[in-house]
């Protein structure tokens, strides 16, 4: 029954791990996006830390060096960067605590009889609420950051 064949298109052989895009393969769910955000924020904080160590190191070279460094860093772009760091650190820290709680405490759920519709305990409402707390605290920290850095 050749009429049943509608189209033939070239395709790529399946690739095992695609960077970043792995987080968006279906089924897309919050926990996996949180993992991606944790990694991204972690890398961003690491980059910031690297520069931070050298910037604060200028305090050893005397008052002049310090104050000129501070002047260079007082422009709005730098403030935006600092605000991003605040948001990243808050999310990374609160999500990290969520990971610790899920790995070490009974908060992850308790084994039970699996009955239809087979809902996973570790993806239940209680565990999701930890993620919502993380997102809430991140946005609160973001707001606080805006207030402090720009004195609104």
């Amino acid at each position: 029954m050749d009429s049943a064949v509608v189209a033939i298109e070239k395709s790529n052989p399946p690739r095992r791990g695609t960077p970043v895009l792995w987080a968006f393969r279906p089924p897309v769910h919050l926990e996996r996006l949180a993992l991606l955000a944790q990694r991204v924020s972690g890398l961003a904080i690491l980059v910031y830390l690297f520069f931070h160590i050298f910037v604060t190191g200028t305090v050893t070279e005397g008052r002049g060096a310090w104050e000129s460094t501070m002047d260079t860093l007082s422009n709005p772009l730098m403030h935006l960067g600092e605000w991003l760091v605040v948001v990243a650190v808050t999310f990374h820290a609160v999500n990290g605590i969520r990971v610790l709680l899920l790995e070490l405490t009974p908060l992850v759920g308790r084994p039970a009889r699996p009955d239809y519709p087979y809902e996973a305990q570790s993806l239940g409402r209680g565990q999701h609420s930890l993620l919502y707390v993380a997102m809430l605290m991140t946005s609160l920290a973001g707001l606080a950051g805006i207030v402090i850095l720009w004195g609104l």
Partner: protein
Amino acid sequence: MSLQVLEPRARSGPNASAVPEEPKSILLRIFRFNPGEDGEEARMVTYRVPLTKGLTVLDALLWVKEHVDPGLALRYSCRMGICGSCGMLINGEPRLGCETQVADLKSDTIEVGPLTNFPVVRDVATDFTDFFSHHRRIRPYLIRPENGTLEPPAQELSQTEAEKLAYYQFTMCIMCGLCDAACPVVAFDREFLGPQALAQAYRFAADTRDRGWSERRETVDTAHGCFRCELAGSCSAVCPKGVDPGLGVQLLKRAVLRGRAPRPS
């Protein structure tokens, strides 16, 4: 195995129904790849499959195999969600072909591909060698002193209901491989034991009849063991039997850190 085509609903007369006719066919895009014969050439072939009531993706694939191309390679057996053979990517998501109703997918075009993170043997069939070797590595059997001897057991090994419930859900695993296909750590780390093996390691560790905690701990407390899990949660999201391997892995981590075998208090 030919499918029966149901009679269309009557449009007039005493048995007429006011519901409009459903589409009579769907488009099935299947990943076709034969590494032996075609070399590296992979292609997506679209077939028009007649739609019947209750059609599953597995039924649709078998229709193609029967009526169009007998060379389509896929694995299936029980077609009722218990053998774990028909794991495949359906619209990008790892699912069992026999348990996925075409009507539930709510689209006229369905994409079927081989499971991610597994080497492709041909078309939709994948190589489970690594998967089974990880499973074997965690010793999926009760470790007791009398293993290997031919002595019959002296008495029954009894368990309370609570002790059984501590590991029961992890025994439901049908080894379909969907969890390993969904896990991002398995995608990047070939030596990672995987959610299936780790959940089974927990299943035996939590079983009060087991005496092999120290060996099990050595196997999972390694660079590619349970601590490589990063809580993506995809394994639990795709498991068709409610095993929740993610839960098993976290409980295993806790047991390893405590140093004691997990036992119900």
